């Protein structure tokens, strides 16, 4: 009679299943502790250089194709105008936030201190490898100063939160991921309504936990509230596109379009809220 356990193939499968169990548990524990995982470390040490090299090749090919199709002059002009527009929009939002802080004469000192935080610049190596999780892989790890719970931003606004770090890479959970939630606030001085911005798994966010009579309008700018202590206050998140009243809960919700197109992010800055320890 055929003995299942004496078959080397079956033994191999059992061994692999056991290894899968151990690796899964080990990874979860490492994530919970905010520590690096030696197995993930080894894999990323192999994958990151390949990714980096492929990105350089792809970037070169893309630039070549763009140059052929549109011409160098048009491309330069477009880039220049886009940079100007982004800089002006970021400056406008930052100025508005500063003005309101000055008016209330609160948190001025804290804001100045937050400006002293030296952010880390990181190149994006990979975007959303899985359809279920909206994540980024960035080329900045523990050796460069990256830590779990650091906040990833661009000049346009909030990108996400670092949730896993290896020696030379880090994983960022994007704000569009269904598991992501950010304390948010309407920037308009007459409103200042506070809620929670959550990912929906698509290109939009849902601003929830707004009061029944919260003053939220189409076009309102949403910024981080700083409540919760993970995200620094005043980082632009997006604009309100639609306001909805929930009949069941009696709460108000809003659909928010993020400022940052996470699919096109190439570099991010990592920073952290005041009082957070590395």
């Amino acid at each position: 009679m055929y003995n299942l356990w004496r078959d080397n193939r079956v033994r191999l499968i059992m061994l692999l299943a056991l290894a899968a169990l151990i690796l899964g548990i080990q990874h979860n524990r490492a994530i919970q502790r905010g520590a690096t995982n030696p197995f993930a470390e080894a894999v990323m040490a192999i994958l990151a250089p390949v990714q980096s090299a492929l990105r350089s090749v792809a970037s070169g090919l893309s630039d070549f194709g763009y140059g052929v199709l549109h011409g160098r002059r048009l491309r330069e002009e477009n880039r220049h105008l886009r940079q100007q527009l982004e800089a002006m929009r970021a400056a406008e939002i930052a100025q508005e936030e500063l003005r309101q802080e000055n008016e209330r004469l609160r948190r001025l000192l804290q804001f100045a201190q937050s400006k002293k935080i030296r952010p880390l610049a990181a190149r994006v190596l990979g975007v959303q490898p899985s359809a279920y999780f909206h994540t980024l892989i960035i080329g900045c790890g523990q050796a460069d100063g990256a830590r779990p719970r650091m906040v990833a931003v661009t000049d346009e606004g909030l990108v996400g939160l670092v949730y896993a770090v290896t020696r030379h890479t880090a994983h960022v959970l994007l704000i569009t991921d269904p598991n992501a939630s950010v304390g948010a606030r309407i920037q308009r001085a007459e409103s200042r309504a506070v809620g929670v911005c959550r990912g929906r798994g698509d290109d939009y966010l849902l601003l929830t936990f707004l009061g029944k009579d919260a003053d939220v309008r189409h076009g309102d700018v949403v910024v981080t509230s700083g409540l919760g202590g993970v995200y620094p206050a005043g980082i632009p998140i997006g604009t309100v596109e639609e306001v909805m009243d929930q009949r069941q809960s009696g709460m108000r919700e809003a659909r928010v379009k993020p400022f940052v197109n996470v699919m096109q992010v190439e570099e991010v800055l990592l920073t952290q809220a005041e009082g957070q320890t590395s």
Partner: protein
Amino acid sequence: MRPPVWMKLVLLIVLATVMQAMFAHRLQFRGVQPDFNKVVLIGIAVNTSVHVATAYGFLAGWLMGTVVGMSVGSYLVSRMVLGASLGLLELRVFRHNPIVLVFSALTGSMLCEAVFYLFSPQPNAPRWAYQALGESVYNLIFILPVAGWIRRMVPPTPRLNYTS
């Protein structure tokens, strides 16, 4: 000297995983994107035996889990189940028939996603179902050429005899 077949297949999975992290999102269509890691695994599984396909499933799951940075255990188990289920077909059907290949890839892929959901439930179940089905169909575009290419690399496996 030519590199051994296993090394070629390992490199193929590594390359597919890296490409998944870099280019898959650019091929998004209505919120659905292909999964190169899974396509290569299916290509390997339909050309090898159950234990070999399970081993490559382990590697594919580990790499994918590490690249995503979460749910490593779920990726490992779901990919191993995918490898084992398609590897088992070796004893049941002639997998080189293109129709059989496409059908097995689709069902195997759905099974893989179902196992993944079981181990790592998603907050939005309808969206998961849409993406799982969409991804499985999207993958079919790449399955035939990839499986055909891998068949050229992998020597035919001797049939297993579980009755002796």
